[in-house]
Structures are given as C-alpha cells and as structure tokens.
C-alpha cells in the first residue's frame, strides 16, 4: 500500500449524496408516507422517580382517532433495551420510573395530534419516591438503590508503574477537581422510525439511526421473533454524534411491536423535547486530578479519579468509562499512573455516547492541569507539553507502543510556530482582556477495549464498468460514503460518478458493528479496500488475458485497463468487466477487516487497546469584554495528526463541526435540572451554537502514515471536540488569570468572577 500517485484518495471529492440533500429529495425517516399509517406517541413520566401503581388508558380511547395503547405487557418479547450488559433498561417502564421523561406506554393514533391527545388522556398513578439526583446522593452510605445491583454502573481501573512512589519522590505535586455538565446532541433531525409489516411475515423498519444492527437485534428480542425476520434500513439520518443508538432502538422496537399488533405501518418521530429528555446526553463528570512532576517539568506520576454521572440506565456508560479511563492521563510519557473511572446511576436522563466519548471531559481536566503545572514551574505551556509528549516508540498510558504514526510533537511544533507569528491585538483597550490557550490531546481509533471490531464490505463491479459498494457502517453526515467511494475508486480505477454506495439495509450488508469511535475510515475503509482489491484482481487477470501479457504490466485507471509502459494501449473497464463475467471471474467480493484484537490486562488496563491514535494540539485566542463577560474567539487553530487525509474538505468540515461542538460544551451548552426535571428542553433555552457563535477554526493536518488504515488513514470525527473545549478553558484562564474548574464557562460565570476581583 504505497501512497504514490493516488488519484482519488487525498482529493476533495464532492459529497456523493450531496445532490439528494440539496434538492430535498433525500428521504429521512419522517418523510415516508404509507397508506393507513399510524402514529405513535409515548406517555412519559413527569416525575424523576416513582413506583407505577396504575395506568388507566380508558379515557384515551375516547379521543377520536386513537386506535390502540401499548403497555409493557403488550410487548411479546423481553421489554428490554441496552446495547451492552447489564441490559438494565425496559422499552416501557413497568414497575418503576427512574427518570423524568421515561416512557411507560405508547398511544397509537391515525394522526400525530390524535396520538398526542390520547397520551394526555392516559391517567397514570405513580407513587413518588425521593429521586437521587447527584453523584454524592447516589454514593451516600444508605442511599436507595436505583437498580438492584446498586448505584454504581461500572467501575474500572488503570494502573501503570507505582504512582505512590512517584508522588513520594515528586518535587512538585498539584491537585484539583474539575466538573463538566451534560451536553445534548441536538442533531437537527430528532429520532424517527417507521415500521412496516410485510406480507411475508417479516417486518421492515426505516430508522434514523447510527447502528441498524443494534436496532434489528432489539426489535427481534422485543417481538420475540428470530433476528432474520427483521429488516432495518437506515434512512438518511440528520446527524447522530453518538446519540441515535439507544433511543433509536427504543422507538424502533416500539414501532415494530405496534405495527405487528395493528398490521399497519407505524411511525414514531420524537418531538424536540422528547429528543432531549428521553434520549441520551453526554455524561456530566467530576474529575479529581493529581500530578507529580520534577522541577525540570518531567511528569512522573498521575492519580486520577473520574466520576461520571450516567443517569438512570447504563446505556453506553461502560464504553464511556473505558474511554475516559484510558485517555485521562493525556498524550504524555508518564511512567506511573493510577486511574479509577466510575459511572454512577442517578434519577436523571440516561447518558451515552456523544462525540468524544468521555475524552472531552478528561481532556479538560488534564489540560487545565498542564497549564497550572506550567505556571507553577514558570515554563512555557507548549514547552511543557512538548517535553512530555509521546513519540513513536514510547509507552502510552496503557503501555501500548506505536512505532509509527505518532505525530503529536509535530502538532505542538506547528502550534509553537503559529503562536510565534500570531500577535494578539496590540492596541489593548481597557475594556477587553485577551488571552491564548493551548491543549494537546489524543483519541484512540477503533472500538479497542470496548469490543471486537469487524467490518464487512462488499464490492460489485457491473458489466457497464460501474460499481456498487455495500458496507454496514452508517453515513450520518460525516461523509463516510464519499470516503468509501474514494477508496473503491482508487483501487478499481473507476471514476467516482460510476460508484454507488448502498443504503445500509441489514438484509444486504454484513453486520459491521456500530458507527462509532472514529473507526469508519480506518476499519471500514480497510474492508472496502480489501473487497475492491479482490475484484481488481479479477479485472487484472482478465485484462492480462485480453492484452496477452502479465498482470503486473497493467494498471486500472480512469475507467480503463491500460499497459503500464504504454498509456495509449487501453481497454475500457466495462469491456474487461463483460469479458470477466463471461469468463467466470468473480466480479463481486465480500471482505472483512478486523482490527487487531485489544489484548490487555483487564485488571489494570495495560496492553494493546486501539489500532491507532489521533493526536492533536489546539490553540485558541480570545477577547473578553470586561463589562459584559462576552467572549469573542479571535483565532482557533486545530492541528491534528489523523494519518493520511482521504478528503481534505470533508476533513475540514469534521474539524470545524467538532470544534464548534467542543466550544459549545466549554462555553454555551448546559442541560439544566430542577428537581430532576430538565427545564430547558428546547432549542431556545438550551444554547446550541448558532451562526453568530461560530468560531474561526483553521484546520491543519500533519499527515503521518498509519499502517493499520488503508493508505495510512486514521480518523477525525471526534478528536477536535476535546481540543477546542480544553483550549478554550485555558484561553479564559490566560485572559482572566482565573482558573475555571467547571464546564461550561459561560459569559455569566466569567462576568461574576471578574466582578469579584
């Protein structure tokens, strides 16, 4: 896999599904229209905790248009949700309510309005219990148990070297506690599904989702039918960012149960409020952080305790716990580390995956501490990072060693250069404070410690010289279909306009696991690369026969097979495809790419976890208005080593979008609870960044060659969230001289602190 003369990989190919999206033709789940379509609307608890005593549905049926009400007992299968053990969540709550917003029955109506009115008419008697709303309440000695297993969802340790000794021998010890709030995904399309019973005793479900195979499994389990009876098709999905998994399986299962019961298609589209209160959000966290260092700035030890408030159900907490655990020490060479990472149940909306997966929270803590250490040592913050930065051949926190593709130092050097050139406005007006902050981070690519990582991809060449690609990973806006098409086009020498990527339909593509962990390009891309390679070998074999020469004298390029030494001797690929077909050379292949299995000591989380890491360093310069607390970002540079970049424009788009989400986490967005109820479940009170909050992100990529990805790729979907959030916090500290220890650092927070001085 040498990277010479690439024609498709490395160029900004236009998004292959762009046309459908700009014309409004792309069908999202809520856009389907079937005859006799019924609409489902859930009854949700207003209380954060309580015992369900009675549900009286009789009044609902008096509402015109109400057709049916589905109760837990009407779910033929397990009434179960949960992607991972401990599978602690019901589709519909039966006995106990564990968060405000939890649904306990589904009303079906001939219109959304009817279903909604029916839901309002359902009378639920719920005996309130005192909700457990904070980590401390949940961990208190005699705390009520939210689940039979207790209030600890999962707890993991990472131990490397001897941190006690490091702290005993340290010249300097710093310690502090940091907190972050919940963040809402706020994809513009809310969760939606449409289930259609088909005449062949099967059920088809269109879903706005991240992992169609999760939904398929859940539907089968809740319908109590074999998985093969269920077909899930991912419709165009209006953003996901980790979020369209658990709630999508919940409404997918409900719609399927309702559709089978009624023998009619059923659609469920969550309203914005439901999408906020009844679907996962980012874990809030409290992180206690200790650093031991030598006078010269060498970090010798870290001790970190991470508490993640996971809300009422486990969902993907076990993954987030692992990610936070592994990344909390940061991208540095540290011989002695002790980390404990724990997720805790509370009576609040349950938390799950969200772009970054626990890494933004710990990076904020880690990078705030780096700056404090630099201050204490009177060292330049970038120099301190550089001194401790991981290089090829170093042991990272889990003692995994990468001999290649560790470009952290290059990202720091780039920022050092840019910072030298950049001058904050010199005409300082009294009214403003200026500051610049930096943050370095890394993020593991692939499922790693969270599970087996296999992707299956099919490539089929047609007799007209076009190709059809099937892969079980979902396009969520990040541009993965375009990237897969570019890889297939590169291998086959076919132009992009002749490549089609199948919709993810569980009947026709192989289960490829969830589209998470910035793994699509690396692990998914590798599967496409391999399958295309097999088809290519058929085409080369055929072309060799046609040219009467050896295969290695032929290349496939621009829709032709041509002789290496004579560009003019060429045969159209479509003719080669036809000949191959009639000769019996296979034109289709299903290949698998399997990331090397994580191989580590589970007790101490030491060993090989991920196939690669993305490394990054961000710089953010801001101006704060002392009178209003208003922050303006003057400059933001995101430098990442993401391996080979397949599509520079899509890459920038990922960095720009993820950075603004990180900025939102750090400055604007905050889920607010009162008595366990979210009081800002809408886009007016919950501040998703608008165009006026935009930050001027510049994207710089340091291309290293990652041997575990096709053409040396890694991934970029998540990492900038952490970099932007942490560099913002450091910029505020630099400008104000005040260390804020809680995200978000809002304008009001800044103003209040400035007034106090």
């Amino acid at each position, binding site marked *: 896999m040498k990277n010479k003369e690439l024609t498709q990989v490395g160029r900004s190919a236009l998004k292959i599904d*762009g046309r459908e999206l700009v014309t409004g033709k792309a*069908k999202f789940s809520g856009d389907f229209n079937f005859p006799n379509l019924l609409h489902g609307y859930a009854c949700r608890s207003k209380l954060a905790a309580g015992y369900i005593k009675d549900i009286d549905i009789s009044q609902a049926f008096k509402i015109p248009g109400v057709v049916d009400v589905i109760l837990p007992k009407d779910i033929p299968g397990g009434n179960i949700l949960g992607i991972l053990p401990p599978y602690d969540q019901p589709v519909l709550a039966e006995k106990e309510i564990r968060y405000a917003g939890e649904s306990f029955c589904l009303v079906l109506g001939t219109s959304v309005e009817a279903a909604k009115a029916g839901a309002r008419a359902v009378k639920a008697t719920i005996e309130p219990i005192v909700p457990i709303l904070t980590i401390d309440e949940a961990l208190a000695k005699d705390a009520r148990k939210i689940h039979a297993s207790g209030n600890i969802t999962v707890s993991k340790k990472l131990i490397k070297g001897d941190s006690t000794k490091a702290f005993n021998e340290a010249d300097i010890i710093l310690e502090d506690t940091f907190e972050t709030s919940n963040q809402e995904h*706020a994809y513009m399309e809310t969760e939606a599904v449409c289930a259609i019973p088909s005449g062949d005793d099967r059920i088809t479900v269109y879903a706005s989702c991240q992992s169609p195979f999760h939904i398929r499994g859940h539907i089968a389990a809740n319908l109590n039918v074999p998985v093969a009876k269920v077909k899930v098709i991912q419709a165009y999905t209006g953003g996901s960012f980790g979020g369209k998994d658990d709630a999508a399986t919940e409404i997918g299962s409900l719609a399927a149960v309702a559709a089978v019961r009624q023998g009619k298609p059923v659609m469920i589209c969550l309203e914005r409020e439901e999408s906020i209160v009844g679907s996962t959000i980012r874990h809030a966290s409290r992180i206690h952080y200790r650093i031991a260092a030598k006078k010269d700035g060498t970090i010798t030890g870290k001790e970190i305790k991470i508490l993640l408030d996971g809300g009422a159900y486990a969902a993907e907490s076990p993954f987030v716990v692992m990610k936070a655990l592994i990344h909390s020490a940061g991208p540095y060479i540290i011989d002695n580390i002790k980390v404990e990472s724990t997720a805790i149940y509370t009576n609040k909306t349950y938390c799950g995956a969200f772009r970054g997966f626990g890494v933004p929270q710990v990076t904020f803590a880690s990078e705030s501490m780096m700056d404090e250490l630099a201050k204490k040592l009177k060292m330049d913050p970038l120099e301190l990072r550089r001194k401790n930065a991981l290089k090829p051949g170093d042991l990272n926190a889990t003692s995994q060693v990468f001999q290649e593709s560790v470009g952290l130092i290059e990202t720091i050097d780039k920022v050092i250069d840019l910072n030298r050139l950049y001058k904050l406005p010199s005409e300082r007006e009294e009214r403003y404070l200026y500051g610049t902050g930096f943050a370095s981070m890394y993020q593991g690519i692939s499922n790693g410690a969270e599970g087996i990582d296999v992707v299956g991809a099919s490539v089929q060449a047609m007799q007209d010289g076009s190709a059809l690609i099937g892969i079980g990973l979902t396009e969520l806006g*990040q541009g993965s279909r375009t990237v897969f098409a570019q890889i297939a086009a590169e291998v086959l020498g076919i132009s992009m306009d002749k490549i089609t990527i199948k919709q993810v339909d569980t009947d026709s593509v192989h289960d490829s696991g969830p589209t998470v962990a910035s793994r699509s390009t690396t692990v998914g891309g590798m599967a496409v690369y391999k399958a295309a390679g097999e088809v290519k070998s058929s085409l080369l074999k055929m072309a060799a026969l046609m040219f009467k020469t050896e295969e290695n004298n032929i290349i496939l390029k621009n829709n032709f097979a041509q002789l290496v030494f004579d560009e003019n001797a060429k045969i159209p690929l479509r003719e080669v495809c036809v000949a191959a077909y009639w000769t019996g050379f296979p034109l289709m292949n299903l290949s698998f790419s399997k990331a090397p299995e994580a191989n580590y000591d589970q007790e101490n989380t030491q060993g090989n976890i991920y196939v690669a890491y993305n490394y990054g360093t961000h710089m953010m310069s801001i101006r704060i208005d002392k009178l209003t607390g208003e922050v303006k970002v003057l400059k933001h540079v995101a430098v990442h080593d993401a391996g080979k970049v397949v599509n520079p424009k899509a890459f920038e788009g990922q960095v720009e979008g993820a950075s603004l989400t990180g900025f939102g986490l750090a400055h604007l967005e905050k889920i607010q609870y009162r008595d366990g109820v979210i009081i800002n479940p*809408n*886009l007016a009170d919950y501040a998703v960044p608008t165009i006026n909050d935009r930050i001027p992100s510049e994207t710089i990529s340091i291309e290293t060659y990652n041997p575990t990805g096709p053409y040396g790729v890694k991934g970029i979907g998540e990492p900038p969230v952490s970099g932007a959030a942490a560099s913002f916090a450091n910029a505020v500290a630099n400008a104000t001289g005040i260390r804020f220890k809680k995200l978000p650092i809002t304008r009001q927070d800044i103003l209040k602190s400035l007034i106090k001085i």
Partner: protein
Amino acid sequence: MLIEFICNGKETRVDVPAEMRALDLIRNELLLTGTKCGCSKGECGSCTILVDGDPVCSCLLLAPKLQGKEITTIEYLERTNGELHPIQQAFIEEGAVQCGFCTPGMILSTKALLKKNSAPTVIEIEEGLSGNICRCTGYTKIIKAVQSAALKLQGAEK
C-alpha cells in the same frame, strides 16, 4: 376551509382545517417533504419556506394564511432540466452539507438573502442565516457557500 395559493409555480387549491400548520400542509398533503421539522417552535429554521420571497418558519404559520400568497419550497430550486440552482451547487462544492437536514432551510434563507442583497458581507450573511441552526458543519463552509453562490449569481446576471 378552501385556500388558493401558488406553490412552486403551480396554482394550488386545497381544503384545510383552520388550525392546520403550513408545515403539515406542505409535508403531509402536498407531499413536499424537503421542508423539514426540527423543533415546531420557530427555533431551528429547518422548516423555512419562502412566502412571497421572504423566509418564514412554516411550523409557526397557519395554512390558511397562505391564501393568495406565492410560496417556494426547496423542491422548486432545481431547474426543470435537472440543473441545480447556483446556491445548491455552491453548497455542494463548498462542503456546506453534512447530514443535510438543515440544508433546505439554509438554502432558502440564502436565496431570500441574496435576492435582497446580492453581495452580502459576512455579518450580513450571519444576520440572514441566524434563524437556521446547523449542528454539523460549524457554519464556516456555509458562509463560504453563500459567498460563492453570490458570485455565481452575479456572474449569471452579467
């Protein structure tokens, strides 16, 4: 009640309940599902349509208010010969589309903006699109797309 209006260039007569929202009329009755619903509260701009050339949140508008008006939805931008409108082209070329859910609304707001102001400054673009939320792109490429569309349209006029 019976209303008459021009929808995407076609005279349209429909009987609608007085309380029906324009968004539901457009999506469910006229089957123009390119107009999206992201919040139903006028907070996201996904449901933007043009009413007599002005961008309006169709989730806040009652269908009967369309009486006598001329409306444009995203479906009307593509030329009949299948050629994309310059704004649509610019959105694709500049990478301003990720998931695409905000895109119809963004494009229509852009159209209204460029009609009033053929060479908007960045601040004017921000103003013109401040009612449209995009969670995916970070907006930078959307601004570039608007600028590029402005140039394309100016070029077309000359």
